[in-house]
């Protein structure tokens, strides 16, 4: 079942002198199995929106439905049901590690769900496997002796152990070097291929271009674009005005088009650019 936002507004500290409207008339549907990207400049409302996905925030106006649960109508005690279904990984998730062993930390989520010891054990094992960390090697270790990248994976495993249907990740590659970034993104892609619905919040156009099928662009508390990723990048000027960038190769295609080349502009990777250019050159040759 999808996640549905209907006419959602969110206001921080309503009625006070510090009142701030963070979300304005958000209407969205996120279907199971999708890989959606969420981009926008800082302050556009991305993190506010994301916190509505698992009930950390409730809309001031409008409704958010997760599966059968109407989030605003859900009592605090029932919010666990929502959080079972939507797993949210914050930025720098390794900052939430606190237990003595990797096993215990990953077990925190399942424990909060009231699962049996046997079930918890199974889930921890599965979660470690999903992040490519060897169970026997890591489960007894203290999370604080691990490397940065390993810590992050343990933190993500902690959310995966809740067995969510939807996985929302806020800048999962923040602070990582290119190698670390590639590893995490590969894992996220793998999870998606195994059936997880993924919402990826990112500042990196290249990451988002590479992985997502659909892109939601936010600006000043509203959704400005909600289309196929390729389509979004064709709105080059509008994106620039908002302070957002497009992948370098896409920029190249735009410039070539300006110079009279007949190339597609919805190119996202170097490989695609190469193909377009070679194609265009061949055509020129046959016309020459």
């Amino acid at each position, binding site marked *: 079942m999808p996640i549905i936002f209907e006419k959602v507004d969110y206001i921080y500290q309503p009625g006070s002198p510090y009142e701030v409207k963070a979300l304005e008339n958000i209407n969205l549907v996120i279907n199971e199995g999708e890989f959606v990207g969420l981009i926008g400049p800082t302050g556009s409302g991305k993190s506010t929106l994301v916190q509505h996905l698992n009930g950390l925030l409730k809309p001031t106006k409008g409704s958010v439905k997760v599966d059968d649960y109407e989030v605003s109508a859900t009592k605090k005690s029932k919010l666990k049901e929502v959080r079972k279904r939507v797993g949210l990984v914050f930025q720098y998730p390794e900052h939430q590690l606190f237990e003595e062993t990797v096993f215990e930390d990953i077990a925190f989520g399942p424990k909060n769900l009231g699962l049996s010891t046997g079930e918890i054990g199974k889930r921890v094992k599965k979660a470690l496997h999903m992040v490519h960390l060897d169970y026997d090697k890591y489960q007894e270790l203290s999370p604080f002796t691990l490397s940065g990248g390993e810590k992050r994976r343990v933190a993500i495993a902690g959310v995966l152990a809740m067995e969510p249907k939807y996985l929302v990740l806020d800048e999962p590659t923040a602070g990582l070097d*290119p190698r670390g970034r590639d590893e995490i993104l590969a894992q996220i892609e793998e999870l998606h291929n195994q059936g997880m619905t993924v919402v990826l919040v990112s500042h990196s156009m290249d990451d988002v271009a590479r992985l997502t099928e659909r892109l939601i662009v936010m600006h000043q508390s509203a959704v400005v674009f909600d289309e196929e990723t390729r389509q979004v990048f064709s709105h080059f000027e509008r994106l620039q005005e908002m302070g957002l960038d497009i992948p370098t190769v896409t920029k190249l295609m735009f410039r070539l088009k300006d110079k009279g080349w007949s190339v597609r502009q919805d190119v996202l990777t170097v490989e695609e650019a190469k193909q377009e250019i070679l194609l265009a050159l061949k055509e020129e040759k046959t016309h020459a």
Partner: protein
Amino acid sequence: MIEVKNLQHQFLNPQGGYQQALKGVSLHFGQGEFVAIIGHNGSGKSTLAKHLNALLLPDEGTVIVNGLDTNDNENIWKIRQQVGMVFQNPDNQLIATTVEEDVAFGPENLGIEPQKIRHLVDEALASVGMCEYKKRAPHLLSGGQKQRVAIAGVVAMRPKVVVLDEPTAMLDPLGRKEVMDTIVKLNRKEGLTIVHINHFMEEAVLADRVIVMENGAIVMEGSPREIFSQVQKLKDLCLDVPPMMELRDILSQNGLNLPRDILTVEEMVVALCR
């Protein structure tokens, strides 16, 4: 200006045993240079940075800053005045309750007369474009603004060299741009020597010279174009390659004859349109 000779450093591994972070590095930084040091996490670049201002001392080898040896205890404070350092976490560098108080911290430590400090603070804030924020509390600033204040705090001490250890790693794209613009300006307009440690190649291309580290040693050294045109080698080192360089590479594999050092979109357009 700074001479690094055969620098070696090892530290204790939390999982047991010693790890060689630097395996005999030799380098030279000249006045007014803008040097970028790139490498993935664990390559030793941050460890190297901390030797330049004597936060770490060599196990073997020497680091000489303007004739001052870091090994000599007497020199430490003089060295740290000449080689300023900006760190990765914007929050964990600002200690005062207002911006101008924080920028004044360095000069105050140097025992400079109060009138002069006022002057230094105002100039430093001007050079990073943060004058209007001087009475603001740090926690109300954006990441990019905080880092600029941190840079001002270093610049106010009138160093000759500014070392920046992954200053943009925790910032959003706007913040990264603000910080990089500031760094370039400090180098070009004020003649400060810049040593910029990071792993974003879009930032490394702004430097005069790029040094690539791997496993505690220098593996590549040269101008940005020289370095980034070696696409395969960079990929083997798990580093990012500028997309235009990569495109140029695979286009030439398909028979196109293109100049070796295409870095920007414009250069590619020009090359293709010929």
